[in-house]
C-alpha cells in the first residue's frame, strides 16, 4: 500500500529510526495476524501505521477487529488459534490471559527499553507486568497509544459569553459549578449510557476523584483490592463524584438523566443553543462525538481536571487508559512487530494524523497533528502521577461489571456505602 508520509520527506518524522528498523528486519513471506480493538476510522489509522511495518519487513500483516473482540480473544486463545499479536485495552483481561499461559513474555530487553524511553517508565512497566501461568511475574504487554482521561471539555465562547474562567483547582471547579447554577444555567452534561457497558464513564469520574483525594498507592491498593472497595477512601471518592452527578441542579436533565443518557450523546449538550451545559468530563477521544465541523481548540476546548488546592501533596495526578500489545504466538514476525512499536516512527505516523498520545520520550512532539493534541501530550508528560484506568485493571467481573452496575445504582439513589459494599461482595465471590 501507499505509505501515508513518504519516508524522508517530512522532517518532523524520525525517518532514521525507520530506516534502521528496516535494515534489521527482513521477514519476507512471513505473515502476522494482529487482533485489535480499533475499528472504523481508527482501523484506517492503524493500517496506515502497519503499512510502514509491511514496507520495512515484507511481512504480510493481517489486522482484524471485531465488535465482540473481548469474547473473540477468549474464544480464540482458549481454542488454540490465537492471532500472532493481540492488542487489548483491558489490563484485567490481559492478566487473565497471562495467568492461563496464553501470552509470551516480552523479555528483559523490552522492559529495559520501556524504563528508559517511556516517560514515567516504571509505571508503564508495572502496568505491563503480569503473573504467568507458573505464577512468576514478567513483562507481557507493550503499551501503545494512550488516552488521557482527566479532561474537562467546554466551549470557550460560551465561557466568554457568560464570563467564566477556566478553574485551576477543584475548589474553583466546584465554585464554578455553583456559580453557573446561580446564573440560571446547568453546569454539567454527564451521560453514563453505553448499551451493555452502561456505567463505565462514572468509573472514570471515581478514579479521577480517587487520585485527587488519595495518594497513588491507595489507588493501587484499591485496584488490587488490597483495601476493600467499601473502604472509606473509596466511598469518599464516590461521593465526590456524587457531589456533581447526584445533584439535580448540577446535571443537565437532573440526576435521573445521568445513567440513561448515552455517553456519545451527552457532549452534544455543550453545543446546543442555548447550551444545555457548560462542562463535560471525558477522555481525549470524545471529539469524535462532537457535532460535525467542530474544531477542537477553537469551537471546543478542554482543561485538565484540576486537583484540590487543599491537597497539594497529591500533585497533578493524571488518569489515563490505553491499549497494550501482546504476543500471543511467538514468531519472528511478532517479535519484529514489538520491536517496530519501539521505533518513534510507529508513534509519529499516527500522532500526525489524529488523536494519539504517547509517553515515548523520543518522539518529536511537533509531530502532533494539532495544538490540543500537543497540549494533551504535555499533560501526559507533566503528570506527577500517572495511573491507568482502575476499572480496566480490576478483574473483568468487577471492573467491567459490578463497578459499572454499582455506579448506576449509586446514581439511581443508593448510598455509596451500599454500592461499594455490594461491589466488594462481588469481588469476594470471584476470589
Amino acid at each position, binding site marked *: 500500500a501507499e505509505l501515508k508520509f513518504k519516508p524522508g520527506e517530512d522532517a518532523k518524522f524520525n525517518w532514521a529510526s525507520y530506516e534502521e528498523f528496516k535494515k534489521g528486519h527482513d521477514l519476507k513471506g512471513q505473515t502476522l495476524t494482529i487482533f485489535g480493538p480499533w*475499528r472504523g476510522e481508527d482501523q484506517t489509522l492503524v493500517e496506515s501505521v502497519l503499512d510502514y511495518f509491511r514496507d520495512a519487513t515484507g511481512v504480510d500483516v493481517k489486522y482484524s477487529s471485531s465488535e465482540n473482540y473481548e469474547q473473540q480473544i477468549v474464544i480464540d486463545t482458549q481454542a488454540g*488459534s490465537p492471532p500472532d499479536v493481540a492488542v487489548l485495552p483491558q489490563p484485567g483481561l490481559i492478566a487473565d490471559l497471562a495467568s492461563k499461559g496464553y501470552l509470551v513474555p516480552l523479555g528483559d530487553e523490552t522492559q529495559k527499553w520501556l524504563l528508559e524511553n517511556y516517560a514515567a517508565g516504571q509505571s508503564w512497566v508495572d502496568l505491563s507486568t503480569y503473573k504467568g501461568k507458573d505464577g512468576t511475574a514478567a513483562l507481557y504487554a507493550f503499551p501503545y497509544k494512550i488516552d488521557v482521561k482527566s479532561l474537562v471539555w467546554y466551549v470557550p465562547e*460560551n465561557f466568554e459569553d457568560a464570563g467564566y474562567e477556566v478553574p485551576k483547582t477543584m475548589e474553583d471547579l466546584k465554585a464554578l459549578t455553583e456559580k453557573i447554577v446561580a446564573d440560571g444555567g446547568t453546569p454539567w452534561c454527564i451521560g453514563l449510557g453505553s448499551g451493555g457497558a452502561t456505567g463505565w464513564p462514572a468509573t472514570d469520574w471515581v478514579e479521577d476523584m480517587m487520585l485527587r483525594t488519595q495518594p497513588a498507592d491507595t489507588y493501587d491498593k484499591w485496584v488490587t483490592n488490597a483495601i476493600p472497595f467499601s473502604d472509606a477512601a473509596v466511598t469518599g471518592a464516590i461521593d465526590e463524584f456524587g457531589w456533581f452527578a447526584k445533584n439535580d441542579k448540577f446535571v443537565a436533565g437532573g440526576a435521573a438523566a445521568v445513567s440513561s443518557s448515552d455517553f456519545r450523546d451527552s457532549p452534544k449538550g455543550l453545543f446546543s443553543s442555548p447550551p444545555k451545559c457548560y462542562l463535560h468530563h471525558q477522555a481525549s477521544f470524545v471529539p*469524535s*462525538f462532537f457535532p460535525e465541523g467542530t474544531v477542537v481548540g477553537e469551537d471546543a476546548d478542554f482543561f485538565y481536571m484540576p486537583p484540590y488546592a487543599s491537597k497539594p501533596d497529591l500533585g497533578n495526578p493524571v488518569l489515563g487508559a490505553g491499549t497494550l500489545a501482546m504476543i500471543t504466538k511467538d514468531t519472528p514476525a511478532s517479535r519484529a512487530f514489538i520491536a517496530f512499536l519501539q521505533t518513534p516512527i510507529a508513534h509519529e505516523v499516527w500522532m500526525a494524523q489524529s488523536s494519539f498520545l504517547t509517553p515515548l520520550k523520543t518522539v518529536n512532539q511537533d509531530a502532533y497533528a494539532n495544538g490540543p493534541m500537543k497540549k494533551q501530550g504535555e499533560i501526559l508528560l507533566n503528570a506527577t502521577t500517572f495511573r491507568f484506568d482502575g476499572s480496566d485493571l480490576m478483574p473483568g467481573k468487577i471492573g467491567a461489571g459490578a463497578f459499572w452496575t454499582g455506579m448506576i445504582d449509586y446514581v439511581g439513589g443508593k448510598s455509596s456505602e451500599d454500592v461499594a459494599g455490594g461491589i466488594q461482595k462481588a469481588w469476594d465471590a470471584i476470589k
Partner: protein
Amino acid sequence: MIASSRSPLTWVVHLSVALLVILWTLPTAGLLISSLRDKDQLAVSGWWTSLADSTQNLVFRAPGPDTQVEKDGKFVIAGNVLEGGAGEVAAFGSSSLKPGDFEPGQTADLNGGEKLTVQVDGSYEIVSDTAMEGTRGQRIFYQATVPSRFTFDNYREVFAAAGIGASFINSLTVAIPSTIIPILVAAFAAYALAWMKFPGRAILVAVVVGLLVVPLQMSLIPLLKLYNGVGMFLGVPAKTYVGIWLAHMGFGLPLAIYLLRNYMVGLPREIMESARVDGASDFDIFVKIILPLSFPALASFAIFQFLWTWNDLLVAMVFLGAGNEELVLTGRLVNLLGSRGGNWEILTASAFVTIIVPLIVFFSLQRFLVRGLLAGSVK
C-alpha cells in the same frame, strides 16, 4: 363468508389491523426516517419532528474576519444563516446566554462593537467600523422554522465503505450454502423421523427438541478447538467456509428437523404408498414426492435460516475470522461504527442495507408459503 360482512364489525377489523400494523412498523419507520436524517439532528430531535416544518434553535458560525469586505468605509461580513436552505428566522441572538433576544431585522450589538442584523430570510450582516480581527467567525444564534430536510449521506457513507462489496459476497457465500445444506440434510432426517420405521425414533425426536435449547455460546470453544485440531491434522486452515457452513448447519438443524418433521408427518400416507407401489424407492419418494410437497415448510425454514445466517456476526467471527478478506457484511457495518460504537446514523442506514437481501428472500420465498399444495391429491 358471513352475511353480516357489511356490518360495522368489519370496520373494527380494519381498524384494529391498521392499529397493529402501525404499532409494529412504527419503530422501523422511525429507523428508516432517521437513516435519512442529518447525523447531528439524529441525537437532538425526534424523528417525527423531521416530517413537518419545525422550529429549531440553531447556531451558525459566520466566516472568519478574513472574508470581510470593506464597503462604504465599513467592514462587512454578509451571508445567509440558512445556507441556501428554505426556512424562516423567527429570532436571533449573538450570545449563548440570550440566543433569541432579537427579532429579525433588529440589530444586535456585539462585544467587539460590531453590529449584527439578521433578516427573516436568514440573510445576515455583520458591520464593523474597524477591521475585524481574529481567526474565528462570529457565532449567530437563531431560531428558525425549517422545513423537513433529508439526505442520503448516511447511505452514501455505508456504500462507500471499503470492502463492502467483498463483504457482501462473503455474506452470500456464508448464507446461501448455510441455508441450503441444512435444509437438505434436515429434510432427509425429518423424512426418516416422520415416515421410516426404526427403533428409537421417538427418542430421537425428543432429543432434537432438547437440542433446540443448547446455547450457541457453549459450543464455540469446544468446536473451535475441534476445528483447530482437524485443521492441524489435515494441514488446512481451521477457519474456512466449509467450517462455517457446517457450524451454521449444526446450529440450525434442530429447528429445521423439528419444523420439517412436524410438517411431513401431516402429509397423506396414501401418496407415499402409491409411489411405493409405483416402484419408487425411499430415495425416489423423498426426492420426487416429499421434497416438492414440503415446499411451504422448506420455504419457511429457509427464510428463518437465511435471516439467521445473514444477520449473524458471532459465528462468522469465530469460525471464519474477522480479517479483511473474510469479514461478513454485518461485521463490516459494525466496524464502520468505530471503536467506541458511536455513529448511530451509520447504524440506521446499515440496518436498512442489511435488510434488503432478507426481504428479497422473504418475498421470493413467500409464494411457496401458500397453502393448498395438497389440493387435489385426496378426495
